[in-house]
């Protein structure tokens, strides 16, 4: 099994006629994802790689079931697109757009909570369940995605889109496939944090272990450590911590919008300490992750 998406998940792409979205549509279709429509105002009646384009999300949901939407629109239109999808009853939103003002992200997240919808992102590459489907640009072209991602039992979550692929590729090379890989997004406020996705992996019988990529900034790692402890999670977690050099450079923003050391809790040293205390193994190098996973699984 997998979490969030399977081969049966039906998906639309908001902003489908944009340059990036057109190639994303091709990639997803080639990977086997059911893309049932796209939305760009004023482009109803056209198609992108055979996917029909509509003016509104409402027009699509009137015709067919829509489980998920990928939002790939400029930052100024992202909140509106998210509100539109949520109010049309879509329950899973993957927001790839970068540089959305934090206040607007919080508004999208708050509305999603009210309506029982889930947001992945923003500033993420998407979700990929190997052999089932991928929504978003994660893994790139289907041929490349099949190289890096293989079906298996490790759940992957990452604040970096690119490092999601790097970690899955490393796991695959060591014979460890993935149940689902989630690029959770690099902003300070995101729709689904590690701790918020853990219950899904916990409930998935196929998932046996978790690998995460983490960075300085914010308290998401501490929150994960608390979740793992409080819920006596059955899943061993292995983490990789990047940006250790940033501990000595407070107030400088590197990498993603959420990656900045503003207080003690933001530093990698503090995060590693908290995760270790919760029994989460922290790898020094990416290539150490597979051995740590295997060790945790007793193999």
């Amino acid at each position, binding site marked *: 099994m997998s979490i969030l998406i399977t081969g049966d998940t039906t998906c639309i792409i908001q902003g489908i006629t944009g340059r990036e979205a057109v190639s994303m549509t091709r990639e997803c279709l080639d990977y086997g994802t059911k893309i049932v429509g796209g939305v760009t105002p004023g482009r109803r009646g056209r198609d992108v790689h055979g996917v029909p384009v509509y003016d509104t999300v409402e027009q699509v949901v009137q015709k067919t079931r829509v489980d998920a939407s990928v939002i790939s629109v400029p930052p100024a239109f992202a909140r509106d697109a998210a509100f539109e999808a949520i109010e049309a009853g879509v329950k899973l939103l993957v927001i790839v757009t970068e540089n959305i003002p934090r206040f607007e992200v919080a508004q999208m997240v708050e509305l999603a909570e009210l309506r029982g919808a889930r947001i992945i992102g923003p500033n993420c590459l998407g979700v990929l369940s190997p052999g089932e489907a991928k929504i978003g640009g994660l893994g790139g072209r289907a041929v490349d995605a099949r190289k890096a991602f293989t079906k298996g039992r490790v759940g992957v979550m990452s604040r*970096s889109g690119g490092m999601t692929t790097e970690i899955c590729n490393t796991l695959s090379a060591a014979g460890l496939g993935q149940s689902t890989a989630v690029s959770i997004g690099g902003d300070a406020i995101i729709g689904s944090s590690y701790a918020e996705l853990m219950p899904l992996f916990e409930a998935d019988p196929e998932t046996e272990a978790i690998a995460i990529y983490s960075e300085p900034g914010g308290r998401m790692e501490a929150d994960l450590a608390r979740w793992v402890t409080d819920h006596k999670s059955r899943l061993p977690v292995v983490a990789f911590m990047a940006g250790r050099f940033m501990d000595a450079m407070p107030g*400088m923003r590197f990498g993603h919008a959420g990656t900045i050391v503003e207080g003690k809790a933001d530093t990698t040293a503090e995060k590693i300490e908290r995760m270790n205390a919760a029994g989460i193994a922290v790898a020094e190098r990416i290539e150490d992750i597979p051995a740590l996973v295997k060790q945790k699984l007793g193999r």
Partner: protein
Amino acid sequence: MRFYEYESKQLLARHGVALPKGSKLAKSAAEARQIAAAIAGPTVLKSQVLSGGRMKAGGVLFADSPDEAATAAEKILRLEINGHKPRGVLVESRQPVVQEYYLAVTWDGIAKRPVMILSDMGGIDVEEVAEKHPEHIAKRHFSTLLPFTEYRAKQLVAQLASGSDVSAIIRFVASLARIFMQYGLTLAEINPLAKLSDGSFVALDAHVDMEAEVRSQHAGLLRELEIGDDETRMARPPTKFELDGAAINAADHRGVAGNVTEFAGSLGLIIGAGGGSLTLFDAVRNHGGDPANYCEIGGNPSVGKVANLTKLILAKPGVKKIAVMMNVVSNTRVDMVARGVIKGVVESGFEPADKIAIFRIPGSWEQEGFKLLGKYGVEFCDRSVSMYEAAGRAVAKAKRS
């Protein structure tokens, strides 16, 4: 983007937040004398720098007459604090304080809501208060969808204040929350919020942070506060190298290449993407490498953009070699980066095989990219070589050169 204290106070004052009498920025000793004369009483003079530790460094002085104020201003204007030159000196009336509060509105990334924080132990480090005296801290989240109404502030204030102070502080909290929302701030802080001997409240110090993402939405405000477009207001001012990098990135909308941070070493880095750069920079340092810069490329930058970034880094004094490394890429095309880097090296008058210590970018269009690199004799590797190992090879080569 951090505002200076005087800018923060100007913003707060526009929305009815009370400041100490006469609060005004002086750029010279003469101006400070004039402001102090208008206040006609004891004054405090504060260095306007973005660095902390102002008080300890001698950047805050008191004066009892306009002449004393002028002398103090002259001292402060000459004083550099942690490498920051003061923008000016803020002159304000100094009145007896009977109680200090801490008040802030900021983001809670876990609750995903704005949070109001109040403490009746103001003036000192709030993280320390939270750790040692949690009973002196009150916190309340509020909605980003509902309009802000006063009862939320009342719930916060009632935990720590009583009597007529309650309604006085509520007004500050409500103003601060509304300013926070209206301007897309990431922090709005008044510390201390002071109760004066006459029972009135004023914002003695204020600190506002605005995220870069909303700068264009508030261009009018920034213009009025005279905050220039090129002021990044990071922990240190940008260097020329960094500004040149930003210009390369801005010149072409395709992808990202040019988001550089300057370091002093000899190994130039063309690395990406966001998380990959952090990982690779750590790896280079772990191997004892001496990076000349940090950067992030990604989102499939054009050949020209990568070439210009390459030229910028190669032109940096002391740079001997460059390493071109990324995580397995999905959207960025390996062949485009390879072409860009080779073009940049050649146009700088160097041999790609000599200048490029290693090229480790596996992923989309890698076959085409590797073919090109092979033609120029550049050492490259595919995904079977880890990021850490590639960084090690680059460092070893740079050390030999």
